[in-house]
Each structure stands twice: as structure tokens, then as C-alpha cells.
């Protein structure tokens, strides 16, 4: 299941997205916690910095990582706790990719114009 086929790719993507999400989470909590310094503190300057387009594209990637990691996590739970899912693990992974696209593409249509529009 892990030898170079779909299960291996599912695992790599789960691990890479997981590492990215954990590191993003810490950065995100840190920068949002700057609200403690009040309206005249560093918060708005930090956010203006992060509103630049490279970071907004990065945020889209983070959202994609969230959706994939969540759905593949549900796949792992099915593999662990049901007797039947392991037989369909490959199909389930393609299902994960499909649903990730079904959720992700409307998100792109919502957010890409915001980035291009410079908002």
C-alpha cells in the first residue's frame, strides 16, 4: 500500500500538507495575537504586509492543504476503523482528490479575483 503507488502519494501529500499547516498555524496565531498591542500597535502593519499578493497566493495553497489533509484524514480514519475501507483505499484516495477539487475550484473562483483586483 505504501510502495510507490497511490498510498505512498497519499502519505507524502498528507505529511507535506501537515508540516505546512502546523508551521502556518504557529505563524498565524503569532500574528493575530498582535491585536493585544491595540489598534495603534503593530497589527495593521503586519496584516498589510500579509495582504500582498504572494502571501495571498500562499494562503490559497494553505486552504488547499487544509481541504486535502482533512479529507485524507477522514480516509485514514475509515481505513483504521472499518473492515471494508482498506480494500477501496485507492478509490478512496481518488475520491479525496476529487472532492478536494470540487471544494477547491469554487474557492479559487472566489479568491483569485480578490487577489487580481488588489483588494
Amino acid at each position, binding site marked *: 500500500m505504501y510502495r510507490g503507488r497511490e498510498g505512498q502519494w497519499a502519505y507524502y501529500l498528507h505529511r507535506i500538507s501537515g508540516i505546512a499547516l502546523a508551521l502556518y498555524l504557529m505563524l498565524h496565531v503569532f500574528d493575530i495575537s498582535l491585536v*493585544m498591542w491595540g489598534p495603534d500597535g503593530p497589527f495593521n502593519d503586519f496584516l498589510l504586509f500579509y495582504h500582498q499578493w504572494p502571501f495571498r497566493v500562499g494562503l490559497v495553497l494553505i486552504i488547499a492543504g487544509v481541504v486535502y489533509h482533512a479529507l485524507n484524514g*477522514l480516509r485514514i480514519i475509515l481505513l483504521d476503523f472499518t473492515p471494508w475501507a482498506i480494500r477501496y483505499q485507492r478509490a478512496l484516495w481518488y475520491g479525496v482528490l476529487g472532492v478536494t477539487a470540487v471544494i477547491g475550484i469554487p474557492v479559487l473562483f472566489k479568491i483569485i479575483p480578490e487577489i487580481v483586483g488588489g483588494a
Partner: protein
Amino acid sequence: MAAETPTVRARRPRTLSEARATYATNNELAWWVFMRISGFLLVFLVFAHVFTNNILINAGTIDYDYVAERFAQPAVRVMDSFLLGLALLHGTNGLRYVVDDYFRRPQVRFWVKAVLYTVVVAVFVLGLMALWTFTFTEMGDAIRNLGQ
């Protein structure tokens, strides 16, 4: 002898009975179960969080007033506290697996984990303080008032 200790590269257990058999200590079994329960809960918490702050609004317009208005709502404080705690525990334990997989030398492993756990505790405290709006100004006032 100690330097030549063979490293065991067992595949991660795939079922509850395998996990029981693999993990000699109850701690690792508990983390295995925690990752699945917290993961399931986080699907809903994180999707709601992303939907609220990226889809319902334009995330490029978020500023101090928006966050202050959200953190003033008790429901947001409670939800975000659960989100903060569960996500940090889930993420940190995941990074612990990653560290154990890729850092093989005990001393390197120890220091990488020491830095990781220190940063996570700091981030958790910062997050809780921000959520419950204990500003440094307010905390300073409270500490000064203790002496009076």
C-alpha cells in the same frame, strides 16, 4: 555499542488492534487515538473557520477592527480556544512523528523537540491571551495594582 543501536523502522499501525500491539506504552496508543478524534473534530472547526474568514468575507480586507469585533464575541472566544488547543496539539504531535522519522541522532532529536515544544507553548499562551484580551497593558496594570 550505544552508537550502533539499530533503529527500528516499523510501519505505522493501521488498525486499533495493531496499534495496541505496536505501542508498548499506553501513551503512544493514547496519541494514536487522539490524532483520530481531534482530526475528526478539526475537520468541522477548521472548515468553519476558513469559511467564515476567507469565503464569507474578502480575507484581504481583514484588519484590527475586524479581529477585535470577532474576539469581543464570547462564542468566538470559546470556539477559537478549542480550535487553538486541538490544532496545536494535533499539529505538534504530527511534527513529533516527523522529527522522530527524520532526526535519528538522539541529541539532535532532543534539541529539535525542545525548540518545537518551547515555541508551541509560547504560541499557545500568546493565542489564549489574545483571545481573552489580556493585553500587556492590562496585565502590567494588574501587576502594578497588586502592590497597592
